[in-house]
């Protein structure tokens, strides 16, 4: 194995530490559109950062955070969140693509933005992904009991003296951070797939919320390894290969769990 592949494997498995627990909440709380919309908005962050000559990671993080909080506020009202999120999600994607195209003499690799380029990560990227994922995981574990309780029934959490609204906001911030960490690796179009597929594959074998998150992490790591192997063997792009491996894992799980 060459260094590129090892770095890709390290970055992918590091990212899975964050996407596994968050992906579970995305599934339990039916936030798939939410993840999509935030990921699409991240494209705008890339364009904005390049236009202002700021670090791309910073632009992505800032826009993802602002957009996620905006979505959070909007969906609180409870008015047709699916439609609103659908409009915002695809609107953000379209605007992001336009903004990237409008950049003067841009050296933007559109394919890498949409599907990621995990084979292009450097040692610094690997360290950043691991640090960021560890941070997301630590906060998720810290708020775990309250978040799981509120996923089941927010009033159960309130009666116990917790503040589910605050935990929801924390979860939103964690999702935005994870989106920012994921963009370079799997791209704007596949981030929510990386959140959802391993967690969905884990569901059939899980008996508790914790085992689902742990199994999702395992499924995610296997998907990353299998996807990279596929990518090398077939010469296919790495991001889609990882997601395809996760989809196969999900299908296998459904058959085996029967």
């Amino acid at each position, binding site marked *: 194995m060459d260094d590129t592949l090892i770095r890709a494997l390290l970055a992918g498995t590091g990212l899975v530490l964050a996407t596994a627990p968050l992906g579970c909440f995305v*599934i*339990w709380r*039916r936030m798939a559109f939410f993840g999509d919309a935030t990921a699409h908005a991240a494209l705008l962050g890339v364009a904005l950062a390049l236009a202002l000559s700021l670090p791309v990671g910073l632009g992505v993080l800032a826009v993802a955070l602002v957009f996620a909080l905006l979505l959070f506020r909007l969906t609180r009202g409870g008015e047709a969140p699916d439609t609103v999120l659908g409009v915002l999600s695809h609107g953000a994607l379209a605007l992001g693509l336009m903004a990237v195209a409008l950049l003067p003499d841009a050296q933007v690799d559109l394919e890498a933005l949409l599907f990621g380029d995990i084979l292009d990560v450097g040692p610094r990227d690997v360290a950043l992904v691991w640090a960021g994922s560890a941070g997301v995981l630590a906060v998720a574990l810290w708020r775990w*009991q*309250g978040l*799981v*309780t509120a*996923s*089941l*029934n*927010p*009033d*159960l*959490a*309130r*009666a*116990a*003296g*917790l503040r589910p609204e605050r935990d929801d906001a924390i979860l939103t911030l964690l999702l935005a951070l994870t989106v920012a960490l994921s963009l370079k690796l799997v791209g704007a179009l596949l981030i929510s797939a990386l959140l959802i597929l391993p967690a*969905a594959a884990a*569901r059939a074998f*899980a*008996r*508790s*919320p914790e*085992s*689902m998150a742990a199994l999702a992490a395992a499924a995610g790591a296997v998907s990353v390894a299998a996807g990279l192997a596929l990518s090398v063997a077939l010469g296919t792009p790495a991001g889609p290969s990882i997601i395809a491996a996760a989809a196969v894992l999900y299908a296998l799980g459904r058959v085996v769990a029967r």
Partner: protein
Amino acid sequence: MSGLRAMSLVALERIVVAEGGRQILSGVDLAIDRGEIVTIVGPNGSGKTTLLRTVLGAVRPQAGRVRRAPGLRIGYVPQRLALDPTLPMSVGRFMALPARPPAGAVPAALAEAGLPDIADQPLASLSAGQVQRALLARALLSDPDLLVLDEPTAGLDQPGSAAFYRRIESLRNARGCAVLMVSHDLHVVMAASDRVICLNGHICCEGTPESVASAPAYRALFGEGTRGALALYRHEHGHSHDHGTRDG
């Protein structure tokens, strides 16, 4: 009354709640004291659940004050548990949400609730009555000062409901916790209450079950029939269980 208020577990003063431009509660006063069973009755849309959620702190009133005794522990039993099939949850794990009880407490609580040996079973595999008992057992694990129940017997038949309310009453007697509940089973639940509050956006009348059942405001809402049923339940109650008489 103000002297009592000082020792109340929860006191709502002149509460006003509006949602979507519609006023749901207007000028509601409610104080719950240690150890009393208070039941809220009222027609659909009368604000019963909203009042309960205001006590929990889930609804923020537009006007009025909510005071809770410092360190108040509330045990909450929701009307239904909408369990999303994507969320794997065993009965034992559910009991440990959100506070992890000391080791051994969960099996003991489940056994006490008449649900032994099911800690490893999925919560989704339980019957409606079993879920209701598990919810109650979970709420009791925190040793609450106040037990809040939202239509706890929805989905149970009348004998099942009567048994459930007798259980609530004996729990109160054993633990001394106050109970606040909402119910549709007017006659059954009223008999197990110290105080009944008849709600219809505002408090129409309140007092002992007997006084409320004969109050004109209550009869205007629920008709004449329930009084006979209340007597019937009292009668059955007296025969099936030797509780004796109890004054407030």
